[in-house]
């Protein structure tokens, strides 16, 4: 089934939340069998959408729920979802340290929304107070959770991103964070105007790429393609 690759072949094949009830339906594409192997952390969140985008971007997507599934990866995606939920599950199921070690060791990673929060060194609540939650802490960034507001303020719009060729990407911001601070080694690839001033919403620190929005929701795989380029560059 889509998303279940070599790393988990010995486990029972399961359906990803949101997946079609029939094997290959409509325009849903079968998984790519070529290209770098990119794991999608599948503890909670919009895993399926990342699997699809990675396939479109030329990677072979597999799901990751156990530490031993990290071994054969060329890259990893930390999906959107609830950062507190995913962080706690990373901790409880022995994934937090191994994922942190692989990312520090050079494994390319893409984090979107909750994933971007998890990759940062610190997280703040919307009101600016520290959020006590498990984080990977691999990027020199401070994120502010739900920075744009609650769900009624969630929005979509067009976004220019350095490294993604024109036209602008349609971006969905859902209870989205922004990067409150980024360190010297971190590049700001995109910003959004807010009443508080321009805020960074895409950040890159070498092999680590993080977006405050959901590139996986809009059917346009160009940010995933940028990530797959980073993965290929790291391979060679």
């Amino acid at each position: 089934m889509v998303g279940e690759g070599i790393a988990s072949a010995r486990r029972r094949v399961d359906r990803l939340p949101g997946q079609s009830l029939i094997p290959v339906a409509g325009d849903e594409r079968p998984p790519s069998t070529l290209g770098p192997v990119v794991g999608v952390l599948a503890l909670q969140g919009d895993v399926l959408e990342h699997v699809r985008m990675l396939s479109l971007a030329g990677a072979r997507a597999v799901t990751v729920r156990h530490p031993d599934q990290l071994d054969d990866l060329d890259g990893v995606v930390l999906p959107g979802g609830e950062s507190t939920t995913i962080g706690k599950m990373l901790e409880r199921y022995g994934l937090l340290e191994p994922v942190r070690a692989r990312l520090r060791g050079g494994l390319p990673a893409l984090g979107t929304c909750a994933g971007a929060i998890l990759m940062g060194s610190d997280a703040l609540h919307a009101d600016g107070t520290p959020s006590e939650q498990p984080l990977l802490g691999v990027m020199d960034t401070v994120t502010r959770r739900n920075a744009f507001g609650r769900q009624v303020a969630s929005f979509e719009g067009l976004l220019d991103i350095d490294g993604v060729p024109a036209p602008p990407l349609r971006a969905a911001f859902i209870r989205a964070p922004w990067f409150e601070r980024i360190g010297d080694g971190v590049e700001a690839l995109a910003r959004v105007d807010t009443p508080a001033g321009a805020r960074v919403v895409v950040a890159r620190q070498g092999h680590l790429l993080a977006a405050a929005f959901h590139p996986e929701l809009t059917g346009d795989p160009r940010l995933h393609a940028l990530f797959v380029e980073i993965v290929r560059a790291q391979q060679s």
Partner: protein
Amino acid sequence: MSDAAARSETTPPAGDDATAAVGTARVKRGLADMLKGGVIMDVVTPDQARIAEEAGAVAVMALERVPADIRADGGVARMSDPAVVEAIMDAVSIPLMAKVRIGHFVEAQVLESVGVDYIDESEVLTPADETHHIDKHAFTVPFVCGATNLGEALRRLAEGAAMIRSKGEAGTGDVKEAVRHMRAITTGIRRLTATSSDERYHAAKDLQASYELVDEVARTGRLPVVLFTAGGIATPADAALMMQLGADGVFVGSGIFKSGNPAKRARAIVEATTYAHDPAIVAKVSRDLGQPMVGISNDALPPEQRLADRGW
């Protein structure tokens, strides 16, 4: 925010605000996508909400009474006091849902203005309208609605629901109705996928649903929104059962805070949902959980006490 690095950068803002739009179908359905594989828990106090968040819940449903108590108390069940909703909202960082009566669009306007993240137009409360559900397109806040079969799910989608949950029978601790409704929905979807395009006009008539939605489900093999399960889930094995039957995530109402050890049971249900396909993990988390909620067999309920029959 004064020392934000973003402000000190010299590059001009790149976002195109002229095209920014709130309340689109994509951002409404998208929040439900972010909840997939997770557990949404009914809570009645800020303390319960914190227990739920600590256990790993992806969202909480703020209520004055859980369904088991609504059932026991009888009388008319309405939207919760906004002060109760706000107190719970302030206690946690995860999304907050709250229930309105079927058809009571002013309760929905009130909860939208309070700032809840999702509204559940719920059969657990006493319906306000015997004929019409809320026109959910008219709101920026997204709605989740219950359904007992595919036709009902598609009617709710036509009205603008951005998420569906199978109804089950709330406040019983009996998973049987949740299974019945989830199977009715998923069997309905699988049947549709076997129809030819010209058979779908008739299928739409049978389902009392829009042809466009019927055609979409037939082509894709899934609802165009996230499908959660609800109503009677009381154990980790119940949650895993519903996930294996095709749910994208789980609502747990009375099952947690009407049990002997809510914190441990909440955490166990979260883990059994994530690892629904791994019996060894479901077994591990099912150990020593204490008393589950006592429960009522659905068969013992007189028809007028069956909540799932509300809504149409």
